[in-house]
């Protein structure tokens, strides 16, 4: 069937289109290529700049190179315990079982990890992991991973569309048929026809002002999936990493890797007290991220914070050369940006919005969403991490489920004919994008972004309460109205103000979903802490929040969490018994 839109807009056709070129997207691309699919990958930035590049600490995989007693069962149990048993058990199982092979594969593609004395991949300790489990390269593991995958993909003949943003998915009778977007460079529109689409767009950190995430992390994949009819799950679980920089203002939120604590870093308040004793005396600094983040927040709130409102994190008791070798980018980051030499004195740190446990609901085996032909892997997908993610489980997540998504997307594409594109959907996408140029003196996207961030930080932050969440929903409603009045000066040529208008639509959708889920879950669990419901609720411990779209209305329902089979249940029971 010929398509009238082809003449009007630049059009590309692929078996598999991957949106996002971080670890999950690139790993999916490599796998789809292996299965013989014709693959295109679209990314908002240049290739190799995605947020994976910032991942520091390592990849969690039970390789047992350092602690021989480790195996996938322990990793599975740690992941379930860290996630407060709200995880998709099957994803946690697959993840723990397959992560070691995915790491070895990276090595076979040229990645060079730090080594043990007998020449194997070195593993370090991390919060919530029973054994030394994180395969790493100093504190730049993500860079090593993304370069390796990038080189592999390029070598295999991947088509890369850099600095290109997808603003809507195209569907045909409820199935995915393509995507519509624009080139950041010249603002021209572009259409992708695809039999399968893999979302690998990462998280939503930019809806908060204090975040470790870059400008790209605006929840695009979740908003695209939601608009196309897919379900979102567990959106209340937003991870605040305990240690972001707090000073100077320009770097507030910038990540301070958990590897600092993994290598022996100690947290103290302004009185010099090692306060983690009061919050988790067993695991101390290596408790899970939700616990450490709340501990630092509480210390500051109760007047024991540092000069700039954080806690002290100190690694200076280790030899200077060791610190520089194991934490080189932390050393430079603090020296150059904060005038602090971490080999001589403590860093000041505080919680920063870091990671989204929730996201698009997927099948464990295939990463398939509820929309035929649409897959999701990595941070954009929900399930593996439950209510709280363990450090190191993200990079392994990208590899394990990126691969599975790529495989399933290629298989799905084999069974499909050429996709049919609906011209009306494209015209609607184009019209929606162009409205900010049509009016003068309308709403500034920068201003609205600032207000949304303020609402999310103040009302939907680490500690939540019904009154605040109600107010946040009202605010978001008003923001959505004002977002219809955006106007931007300038042309379509590389215009960041215009780009932000599109990104804000995604941020508003995910912010609403987060707030609705947070309001519904009347308990505290993992990263979700309600002041008005401070304890676990057994009913909520067995159900997930599910968001879907009905017309223009966001619908929230609860669905029972699938329970693992008896042999795995036993592992979890043991873990529950061991719970600190």
């Amino acid at each position: 069937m010929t398509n009238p839109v082809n003449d009007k807009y630049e059009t590309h056709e692929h078996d598999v289109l991957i949106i996002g070129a971080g670890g999950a997207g690139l790993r999916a691309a490599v796998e789809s290529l292996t299965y013989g699919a014709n693959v295109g990958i679209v990314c908002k930035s240049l290739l190799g700049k995605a947020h994976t590049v910032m991942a520091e600490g390592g990849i969690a995989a039970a390789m047992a190179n350092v602690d021989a007693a480790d195996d996938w069962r322990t990793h599975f149990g740690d992941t379930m315990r860290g996630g407060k048993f709200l995880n998709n058990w099957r994803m946690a199982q697959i993840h723990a079982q397959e992560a070691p092979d995915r790491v070895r594969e990276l090595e076979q593609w040229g990645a060079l990890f730090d080594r043990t004395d007998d020449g194997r991949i070195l593993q370090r300790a991390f919060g919530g992991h029973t054994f030394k489990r994180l395969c790493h390269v100093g504190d730049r593991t993500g860079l090593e991973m993304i370069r390796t995958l990038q080189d592999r993909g390029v070598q295999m003949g991947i088509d890369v569309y850099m600095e290109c943003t997808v603003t809507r998915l195209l569907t045909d009778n409820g199935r995915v048929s393509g995507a519509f977007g624009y080139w950041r460079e010249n603002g021209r529109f572009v259409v992708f026809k695809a039999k399968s689409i893999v979302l690998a767009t990462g998280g939503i950190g930019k809806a908060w002002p204090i975040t470790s995430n870059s400008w790209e992390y605006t929840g695009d994949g979740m908003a695209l999936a939601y608009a196309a009819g897919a379900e979102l799950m567990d959106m209340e679980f937003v991870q605040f990493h305990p240690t972001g920089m707090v000073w100077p203002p320009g770097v507030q939120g910038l990540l301070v890797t958990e590897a600092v604590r993994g290598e022996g870093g100690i947290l103290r308040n302004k009185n010099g007290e090692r306060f983690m004793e009061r919050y988790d005396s067993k695991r101390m600094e290596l408790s899970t991220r939700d616990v450490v983040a709340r501990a630092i927040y509480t210390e500051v709130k109760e007047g024991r914070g540092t000069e700039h409102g954080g806690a002290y994190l100190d690694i200076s008791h280790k030899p200077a050369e060791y610190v520089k070798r194991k934490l080189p980018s932390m050393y430079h980051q603090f020296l150059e940006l904060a005038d602090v030499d971490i080999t001589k004195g403590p860093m000041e740190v505080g919680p920063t919005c870091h990671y989204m446990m929730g996201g698009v609901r997927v099948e464990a085996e295939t990463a398939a969403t509820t929309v035929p032909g649409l897959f999701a892997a990595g941070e954009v997908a929900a399930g593996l991490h439950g209510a709280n993610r363990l450090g190191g489980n993200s990079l392994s997540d990208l590899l394990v489920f990126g691969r599975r998504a790529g495989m399933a997307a290629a298989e799905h594409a084999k069974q499909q004919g050429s996709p049919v594109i609906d011209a009306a959907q494209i015209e609607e996408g184009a019209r929606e994008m162009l409205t900010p140029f049509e009016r003068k003196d309308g709403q500034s996207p920068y201003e609205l972004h600032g207000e949304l961030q303020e609402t999310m930080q103040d009302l939907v932050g680490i500690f939540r309460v019904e009154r605040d969440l109600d107010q946040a929903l009202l605010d978001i409603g008003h923001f959505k109205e004002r977002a219809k009045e955006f106007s931007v000066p300038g042309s379509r040529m590389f215009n960041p103000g215009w780009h932000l208008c599109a990104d804000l639509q995604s941020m508003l959708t995910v912010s609403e979903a987060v707030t609705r889920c947070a309001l519904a879950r009347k308990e505290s669990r993992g990263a979700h802490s309600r002041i008005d419901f401070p304890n676990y609720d057994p009913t909520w411990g067995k159900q997930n929040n599910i968001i879907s779209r009905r017309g223009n209305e966001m619908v929230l329902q609860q669905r029972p969490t699938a329970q693992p089979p008896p042999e795995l249940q036993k592992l979890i029971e043991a873990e529950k018994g061991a719970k600190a």
Partner: protein
Amino acid sequence: MPNVVLRIFRGDRDSGQTADYEIPLTPGMVVLDALHYVQKHQAPDLAVRWNCKAGKCGSCSAEVNGRPRLTCKTRMDSLPHDKPITILPMKSFPVIKDLVTDVSWNYKVNRKIPAFKPRPGTDWRIMQEDVDRVQEFRKCIECFLCQNVCHVLREHDKHDQFGGPRFFVRVAGLEMHPLDGLSRVGLLKSELGLGLCNITKCCTEVCPEEIHITDNAIIPLKERVVDEFYDPVLRLFRKITGTETKS
């Protein structure tokens, strides 16, 4: 704190000029913070490429007061405030808009380099000492500042005959990988034009990752090219024995 003036290039590949923006300083401010301030308050369409804002992604390269820098790691308090701070796009690449340049040429060069290929039968045991020197090359964040300052590209415009320091670093990382089984020495001599480099070390000076590009990557690679192509004894030896060696 005082106000300062930023003098920023505004324009595209056809035309443009600098424009002045006065902004208030804040403690610890970096140049990228200042550019974001301008975007938010004065020029919403100011084109700037950036990502991590932590010196890890290498997106925000520009020329600050004539010096190629990552703007996210350049402190405002390291620059004189009594005159405007000039911020221009990288000179060696075509301007797209304002501070954003077209760096796609780099990705084309990269495609020419054969990826890692392990030697058959390797057991994947590698000692840290053998990894150390390669890990230095793998620190590269692809900010392309080395490409930007290299005379062969910046003054002589030999983009079609020369790979540039970034890709000598990449090849060095592959050639010195303890388990790699390919040789890229021929590629270095021909398509990547390693011979055009006259080791002035400009690339090393601007590298934000402090990779010793000239000493540790380029010079050893030049030695390998010499061994492979210009050593008469080795050449004769190979001719007689019919062997190829990987150095």
